[in-house]
């Protein structure tokens, strides 16, 4: 008989159990993941496999066919790439429903380094698609990855787990959205071309379509920036006054040891555009913008502390949503487990018979009146007998196969007769 719970196995490591150097070594690009899946499937211990690999986690989910699957995964995926990955405390192992629950939590953003971050849902989707493409995901892991996607989508649609910016770049964007409408085509002026300026530029261009003007004292870094953002317009550092006056958002992120925008500069810039508000985000340490500029009318100056306040508020809000997401995960896991239990032969046979009986009754009701009343009982008997005889052999075979637990065949029967889940 099939067991009451799925024999799933998860072996993996993530940002909590392994440092970035180790995560880098075991991280799998798409082709490597496909290769790993093919090699895992070649082993007799493994029936189905799925690999989720991102910069923060590498996790292998398998539906084992025989004992020893855990060792196979550890050896082939982890130890082969980084022997220290197999050291105690690095890898975590989950079995049965807990392995399934983990994937649902991952897709929902509960296991992410930044709680509720959105990219993971796409990464789980890609992992599922890859496993199906190489034939590694069968009915069980295919269903599990769909359950994970459903949980992830519901978590983001029904709760605020993914709401509010939690990085400097997106916090800047959130501030911009609270000041201006129709962001497309608005101008952002970047003072500085380093990593922080890039992250802000990325958020503003990719998510909101702002036009970027950039300036930097060093030529080399400016060129690197322009290589990454070819649509950005460079201006000389000395022209930062006019750049500020033209912009809607100014982001200062230079390593200058003193203020490169004074309150006087900004007051003068505002006089040239009295009708438009200006958001100035100072991401420099020491600060790049004179704090006194806060008093300039229609100008909104925010520094790192201010942005951190926004990020912390959003994180608190996301943390408050965790119980709701846990409920969604529990619900989707229960659906998955119900589906799994439905793969046992006996309930499947019962549903098949129930469906056939429903069809018989429906069809009979449509034609019974055409028969004389004295024949009704006979027609009833005949149709019931027909259905029973047609289903007798498939039912017997299904019950017999239950001994060998042939899930693909059972799933095929479900699909052929559109038997669906119990609740459907």
């Amino acid at each position, binding site marked *: 008989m099939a067991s009451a719970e799925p024999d799933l196995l998860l072996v993996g490591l993530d940002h909590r159990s392994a440092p970035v150097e180790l995560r880098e070594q075991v991280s799998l690009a798409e082709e490597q993941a496909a290769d790993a899946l093919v090699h895992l499937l070649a082993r007799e211990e493994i029936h189905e496999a799925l690999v989720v690999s991102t910069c923060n986690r590498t996790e292998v989910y398998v539906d084992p066919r025989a004992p020893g699957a855990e060792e196979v995964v550890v050896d082939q995926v982890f130890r082969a790439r980084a022997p220290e990955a197999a050291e105690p405390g690095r890898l975590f192992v989950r079995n049965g429903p807990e392995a399934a629950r983990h994937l649902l939590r991952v897709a929902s953003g509960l296991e992410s380094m930044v709680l509720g971050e959105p990219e993971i849902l796409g990464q789980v989707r890609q992992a599922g698609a890859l496993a199906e493409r190489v034939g590694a995901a069968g009915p069980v892991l295919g269903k599990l990855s769909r359950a994970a996607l459903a949980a992830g989508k519901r978590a983001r649609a029904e709760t*605020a787990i993914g709401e509010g910016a939690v990085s400097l770049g997106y916090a800047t964007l*959130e501030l911009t959205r*609270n*000041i201006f409408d129709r962001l497309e085509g608005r101008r952002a002026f970047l003072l500085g071309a380093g990593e922080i300026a890039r992250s802000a530029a990325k958020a503003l261009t990719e998510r909101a379509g702002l036009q970027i003007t950039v300036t930097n004292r060093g030529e080399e870094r400016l060129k690197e920036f322009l290589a990454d953002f070819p649509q950005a317009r460079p201006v000389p550092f000395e022209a930062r006054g006019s750049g500020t006056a033209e912009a809607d958002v100014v982001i200062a992120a230079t390593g200058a040891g003193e203020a490169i925008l004074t309150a006087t500069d900004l007051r003068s810039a505002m006089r040239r555009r*009295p009708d438009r*508000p200006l958001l100035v985000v100072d991401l420099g340490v020491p600060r790049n913008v004179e704090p006194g500029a806060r008093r300039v*009318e229609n100008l*909104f100056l925010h520094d790192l502390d201010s942005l951190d306040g926004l990020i912390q508020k959003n994180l608190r809000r996301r943390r408050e949503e965790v119980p709701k997401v846990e409920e969604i995960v529990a619900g989707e896991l229960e659906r998955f487990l119900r589906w799994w239990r439905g793969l046992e032969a006996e309930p499947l046979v019962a549903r098949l018979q129930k469906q056939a009986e429903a069809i018989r009754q429906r069809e009979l009701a449509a034609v019974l009146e055409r028969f004389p009343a004295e024949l009704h009982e006979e027609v009833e008997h005949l149709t019931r007998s027909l259905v029973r005889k047609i289903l007798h052999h498939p039912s017997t075979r299904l019950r017999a196969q239950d001994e060998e637990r042939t899930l693909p065949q059972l799933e095929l029967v479900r699909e052929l007769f559109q038997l669906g889940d119990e609740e459907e």
Partner: protein
Amino acid sequence: MDSFLLAATVLLPLLYLTATIAYGQSFFAESPRAGMLAPWVLRGALLLHAAYLAALWARYQQLPAASVSQATSLMSFALGLVYLVVEWRTRERSTGVWLVGLVLFFQLLASLLVGPPPPDRALFHEPLFALHVSFALLGYVAFAVAAVYGFLFLRLYRDLKAGRFGTFFGRLPPLAVLERMMVWALTLGFLAMTAGVTLGMVFVRRIYPDQWLTDPKILTSIALWLLYGLALLLRHLHQWQGRQTAVVSLAGLGTIIASLVTVNLLFTGFHGFR
């Protein structure tokens, strides 16, 4: 009919209170259920309000603006209707608690000030006079809407200036939208009031040629008209920005309420509801 009018004066504030609470739950507690319920309660309240005003019209055979209570109730109804249309067009419910709260305030005032039957005045049967009253009320309603947007603008402006990311941050439309809505409402109110004041001048010169300069309501209305006109002019000349305009819109609403209540109740004169 009198018992219906009496019941409506009690029921209307209660219904608007329920709608305000529901909009408040939707805004502050982010309750989706309250967000779904609130517009239906408001629609129900406005339906009853329309029936109430129609009954007033039928009962006294004149425009239901012949007393402080009636005029305030008419304003409350118009404000509720304007908000419902704005919500329907923009699908934006975040300003509901404030605007419907103002509807509640005006209707509560109207219900509390219900008094003896208004005098049957020939003036109230003149179509041109009805137009004067309609324009004046439309102006007041638009100024009330501007004040609400002005209040929200100032809250968000101050939060953004101070880096306070509290209840208002992220739940209201962007600052630029609040400012645009405020200026749009101010402009509409100013145009309506200009028409109302002009039509009023036609009557006043005809009916009370000597008294109009001493009527506190006319003087207040002209002062308001000048204040709003000045605010719009300074804005047009780039001298004033959103913050100053918002302050004026709030001060204007305060003056309107003072004019409606204080001037009408404390001063005697030919103009108004005494």
